[in-house]
């Protein structure tokens, strides 16, 4: 598509590529988030006499954060578009109870129960998305209603009892680890190590390809030395994350799901028109509308995706606990929202990243985990988490004012 309009308008002033600053798409706030996470980790490491930093504990911590992290991937979209979803806790409990009931009481095979549960999540998303996008009821109200409705549904399905799905396959989703491939050494999972190495290779290949692409288009790229530095340090980080799991039981399946979700939704939010629309709507709904964006459709789709993510989280959650109870997932929406906000998602909409939200989820899980290790009571856990959330938002608000 050649552009007649722009071709002859005005003389070019800059040479192609010019002196544009290098294209670093990483939010400054995310660096602070990573630093905050490392700070939390070092504090707990000292306070727990290094129990916290052991591969066993960190591996557990990842697993604990999985449910929140899965939902955070789509909650970011919801919040960036300027909405909120208060129903996810109940929805996790509800979908979890349904899948447990299907397997245990109805005797369905796991491989049938899971797609049906995902379908249920889709329906939840369609329902809430319809009210928010097409009727125009504020998401706060729609999802508050959803919270109540699904809490009722949850109690109805479980009948107030605890249901334990007795399926080995199902249990793998929340508790299983990647099996050993060749080696039979405890404390080193070769399959996971292989995946880790693969991840590092993939990362480096894509980094080099992206750089080549930019050079081909004549855009500025960072100096080879800087590029190597970035690639090496990122590779080390990836290696460390995988090492934690490799030297315990291996990568849990739940974490594989989290990784897939992060990759998918990072791509959706950064590289797809739909993701761009979400940011545009949250940043300035009127301008988005006037730019020809279908605001209703976009909002609808956001909630549909959210419903799907919630069902996935519900399956992982129920599988990890191997139980569906009446109180399952209660209060989880606040953990998810807090994770997004701590990870740099603006409370006003328009800003936020999936990656940041995952870091936020890890911060929240670390607080829980570390304080549990220290034998601090629930009282302190709530208070500390509350204060951390408050400070995170205060920082967000004050940096916004400066702009």
């Amino acid at each position, binding site marked *: 598509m050649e552009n007649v309009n722009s071709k002859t*308008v005005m003389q070019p002033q800059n040479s192609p590529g010019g002196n544009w600053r290098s294209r670093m798409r990483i939010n400054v706030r995310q660096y602070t988030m990573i630093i905050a996470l490392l700070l939390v980790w070092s504090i707990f490491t000292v306070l727990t006499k290094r129990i916290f930093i052991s591969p066993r504990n960190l591996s557990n911590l990842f697993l604990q954060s999985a449910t929140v992290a899965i939902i955070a991937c789509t909650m970011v979209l919801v919040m960036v578009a300027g909405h909120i979803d208060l129903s996810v806790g109940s929805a996790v409990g509800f979908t979890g109870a349904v899948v447990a009931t299907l397997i245990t009481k109805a005797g369905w095979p796991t491989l049938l129960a899971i797609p049906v549960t995902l379908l249920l999540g889709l329906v939840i998303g369609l329902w809430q998305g319809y009210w928010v996008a097409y009727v125009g009821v504020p998401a706060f109200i729609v999802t508050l209603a959803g919270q109540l409705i699904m809490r009722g549904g949850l109690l109805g399905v479980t009948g107030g009892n605890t249901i334990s799905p007795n399926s080995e396959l199902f249990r793998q989703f929340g508790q299983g680890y990647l099996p050993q491939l060749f080696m039979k050494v405890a404390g080193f999972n070769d399959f996971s190590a292989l995946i880790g190495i693969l991840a590092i290779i993939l990362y480096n290949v894509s980094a080099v390809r992206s750089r080549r692409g930019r050079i081909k288009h004549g855009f500025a790229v960072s100096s080879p030395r800087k590029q190597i530095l970035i690639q090496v340090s990122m590779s080390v980080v990836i290696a460390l994350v995988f090492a934690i799991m490799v030297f315990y039981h291996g990568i849990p399946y739940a974490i594989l799901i989290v990784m897939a979700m992060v990759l998918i939704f990072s791509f959706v939010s950064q590289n797809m028109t739909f993701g761009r629309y979400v940011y545009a709507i949250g940043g300035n709904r009127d301008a988005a509308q006037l730019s020809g964006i279908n605001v209703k459709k976009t909002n609808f789709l956001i909630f549909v995706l959210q419903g799907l993510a919630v069902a996935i989280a519900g399956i992982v959650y129920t599988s990890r606990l191997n139980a569906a109870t009446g109180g399952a997932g209660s209060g989880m929406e606040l953990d998810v929202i807090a994770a997004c906000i701590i990870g740099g998602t603006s409370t006003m909409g328009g800003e936020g990243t999936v990656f940041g939200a995952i870091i936020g989820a890890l911060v929240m899980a670390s607080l829980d985990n570390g304080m549990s290790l220290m034998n601090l009571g629930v009282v302190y856990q709530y208070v500390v988490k509350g204060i951390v959330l408050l400070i995170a938002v205060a920082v967000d608000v004050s940096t916004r004012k400066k702009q």
Partner: protein
Amino acid sequence: MKFESACVRRPHRSSVRPIKTWKVKGMDDYILEMNHITKEFPGVKALNDVSFNVKRGEIHALVGENGAGKSTLMKVLAGVYPFGSYIGAMMFNGAELQFAGTRDSEKAGISIIFQELALVKQMSIRENIYLGSEFQKNGIIDWDATFVAASKVLDEVHLNRNPLTKVIDLGVGEQQLVEIAKAVSKKASLLILDEPTAALTETETENLMQILRDLRAKGVSCIYISHKISEVAQIADRVTVLRDGRAIGTDDVKNMTEERMIRLMVGHEITQRFPRVDHTPGETVLEVRGWTVHDPDVPTRKVIDNVSFSVRKGEILGIAGLMGAGRTELAMSIFGSYGVGRTGELLLNGKKMVANSPSACIEKGVAYLSEDRKRYGFIAMMDLRGNMTLASMEKLWKNGIIDGNEEIRRTEQYVRDLSIKTPSVEQKVGNLSGGNQQKVVVGKWLMTQPKVLFLDEPTRGIDVGAKIEIYNIMNQLVEQGVCIVMISSELPEILGISDRILVMHMGRLVGDLSWKEATQEKVMYLATGGR
């Protein structure tokens, strides 16, 4: 709402200091004297040594083009700009005024009624009139006393409504009367009305005029700001003309013919600020036939009334008119983003165009650049690249996946072509200057490759250099065969750039002039309702 709503009674600071020797007997009895007022904003002198006075019991009209300084002058008077933020002195009822805020001016007896009414729509008439000055004892409101008092003031302004009616259920004209009732209830001795009839019907206007005459008979003075010269001639006793922040002249209305007022308002010579290029118009591209649009808030009110015009290839069509004439509404309704009960026909290249949404219009090649850059134009927290490609996403990436490198390449091309000054295409647009922000929005619309481009106040709020750049861009686009429809409130701009000028007045098309026959006086005459 620009004014803090007065909900809490605060102790009153002594802002009115009596000066004994000022008033001279035998001379005209002035209720208000504003002497040598100068008000500067960064880079702009909004008011330059303006002296302005109002006699007791007169209706004094304040006229001038958009941006002449009328609103600024009234904001100084109302205390929106507190004492110390301007140079000059004000005397009111023989006392010097030094307002710290709007509450002080209210206390002194000055009431302003703005174009955008400052009523709480969900509250009743009664509550609104006495909002901030409730009949109360120890914080407990005496509703009966309020009701009786409200009924009385409503009588005074000829508003035959139950005081318990919610304001939201009233028409715009009635709401305005509630505002006036509020001012009357406060025993205001000086009433300021800013474009009071912009949204009123003829009967409502007539009623308002009568109320103002009644109030004048009771000794209430009034400053009447209006674009409508014919109305001013009807109601005012004296007229002051402002232009470019200066008071150009004050005279009795009988000495101020409509022609003289317009000449004074327009005043300055047209200098070569406008690069005119001769265009040769080709075939008709967009034709609008019998276009009628109703107000989405008041569906019975016609905002656009049976407007027909056509735009030809290779011409800049200017649309002139005063604020509230319906120019923006015309463009936005064609673009599918404003109004209800739209009737009429749109023809694009001779074929009927059915497009009820911006996305449909963009697809067909119609683009609209909004006058309100901040609200409708760009997304401040999004980077330049994201803003620039926002309207052409569907065209560029049909499978929904953005090619990041291609996106940057296209954006950088426009950044160069439009000479946008930015450190990078990943700069947040909110951090750019006004002129560059405007160019980003222009770039956004150019990227959609429009056949017809509506530019609504394309140079508002940007500096002279950037303005000329925008004009050059427009000229070059026209040479490439794009039709441009430019809405502007700046007459020199309309006259300097357009090939043909349409004039609108109260939702109707009242003039169609070629640039050769158009003069500022002619356009202003048509825009103010002259025939």
